[in-house]
């Protein structure tokens, strides 16, 4: 085993830990978008909450990219994890643009801005399902 490599079980558990963090970020984003759509939260608080989730996803992504998988299974889990975290990050970035547009930003017609909260929540649900699936395959809770 090379220096820096983990046992296969440990490596898969590390993938699961990163995906738990990603799932938490996905759920926080869902709650924030839902609250803003219902007028329960202010734009600055929603923007800050989403920015914090991008930081959390960045941390999860870093944990996955720096992992040295010791076997094929953990390598596959890592690749799948990286894909789902990347897709989720794209949706959170879109959510932030949607918040900016709602708060008066001049983003009319921009491709990245979802049409409404429902479209955004649908994208988010799909990305969250993918994270859940990857987490389940990595043996996470």
């Amino acid at each position, binding site marked *: 085993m090379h220096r820096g490599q983990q046992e296969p079980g440990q490596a898969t558990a590390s993938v699961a830990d990163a995906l738990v963090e990603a799932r938490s970020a996905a759920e*926080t984003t869902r*709650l924030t978008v839902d609250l803003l759509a219902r*007028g*329960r939260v*202010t734009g*600055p608080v929603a923007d800050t*909450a989403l*920015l914090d989730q991008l*930081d*959390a996803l960045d941390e999860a992504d870093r944990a996955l990219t720096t992992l040295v998988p010791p076997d094929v299974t953990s390598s596959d889990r890592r690749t799948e994890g990286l894909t789902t975290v990347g897709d989720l990050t794209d949706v959170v970035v879109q959510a932030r643009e949607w918040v900016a547009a709602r708060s008066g930003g001049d983003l009319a017609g921009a491709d990245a801005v979802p049409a409404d909260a429902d479209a955004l929540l649908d994208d988010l649900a799909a990305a969250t399902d993918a994270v859940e699936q990857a987490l389940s395959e990595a043996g996470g809770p």
Partner: protein
Amino acid sequence: MKKVMGAALGILTAIGGFVDIGDLVTNAVVGSRFGLSLAWVVAVGVVGICLFASMAGRVAAVSGRATFEIVRERLGPRVAGANVVASFAITLLTLTAEIGGIALALHLASSVEPRLWIPVAGLAVWLVLWRVKFEVMENVAGLMGLLLVGFAVALFLLGPDWGELLRQAVPPSPPGTEHAATYWYYAVALFGAAMTPYEVFFFSSGAVEERWTAKDLATNRINVLIGFPLGGLLSLSIAACAAVVLLPAGIEVSALSQIVLPVAQAGGPLLLAVVIVGIVAATFGAALETALSSGYSVAQYLGWSWGKFRRPAHAARFHVTMILAVLLGVGILMTSVDPVMVTEMSVVFSAVALPLTYVPILVVANDPQYMGRYVNGRFVNALGTVYLVIVVAAALAAVPLMIATGAGS
């Protein structure tokens, strides 16, 4: 009537002043991961801080001197030196966390990058320390911090299943998804957050600032025995809000912005605004208290002239110490370190330093030379001894648990 008003004000400021960034973050993290299964630690911590804060207040009221001035005289420069080094380091870490907390709360309100708020927060803390009278500073920060009662209002508006919350709290046990070591790591962190050493430094030195005498012992007792437990209920409300909204959604708190989402869900933008003002006030008040405590601890150990009741020119080294502490805190935060991580470290290392703060208080409060007929009674000593055992156990377990659990991750 004036006395009643004074006591009421003391109680309100004790409630508002109890919750700081350490309590906010730790209670929310714990609520989102463990529900109310660690509520018992808040209760144990509140009894402990009531016990030792009232003891420190009594020493100051009876002797007319701050507790840690007497510690050096009574226990010698070596023991007192160990105490002051550990307490100053922990208080500095806590001050750093509080300044970071102000910046994070202002970030929430404005979306403006926290690093831009950090120097502003540091400057504001110093200006208030320099210009504002002690009583005004203490009462305004405490009363504004009382706005955190918004968390309790939010909890009622959320309409939780109270039976389920009670089941989480009694009997206390870690949820199946969490490891026992992580559970105990957070138990130690919550205990450290409730019994942070700066609270007794501030309480005993504040009694001298306000010129308490033996006649004020009843006020001391009322402030502590009503104010701190009600402050503890605020802490539990924060944990319960997280347990009701964030735990079922699988959200693990890692940022201040997540802590206020249950409040927004329950009460909308108005309650959210109230709570954000409360967070700014609570962290600002705690930053003032920790900055003062760093000045108090060093000045009292070295025998310098100290106190807000003196003009800055007459307590220059005391004020310079506070300025340096604020500058150090701002400097640490400007390295881009995560303020939430600093907060988590500060509460754990507070637990490590607890014996060095609380053992000397118990010794001095038992010395008839200083206390006369106001020495500790049997019950207080028995309870104090039990708490010393808990405090030592928490101090010994803190670092091993932090290493074993990867700081609770």
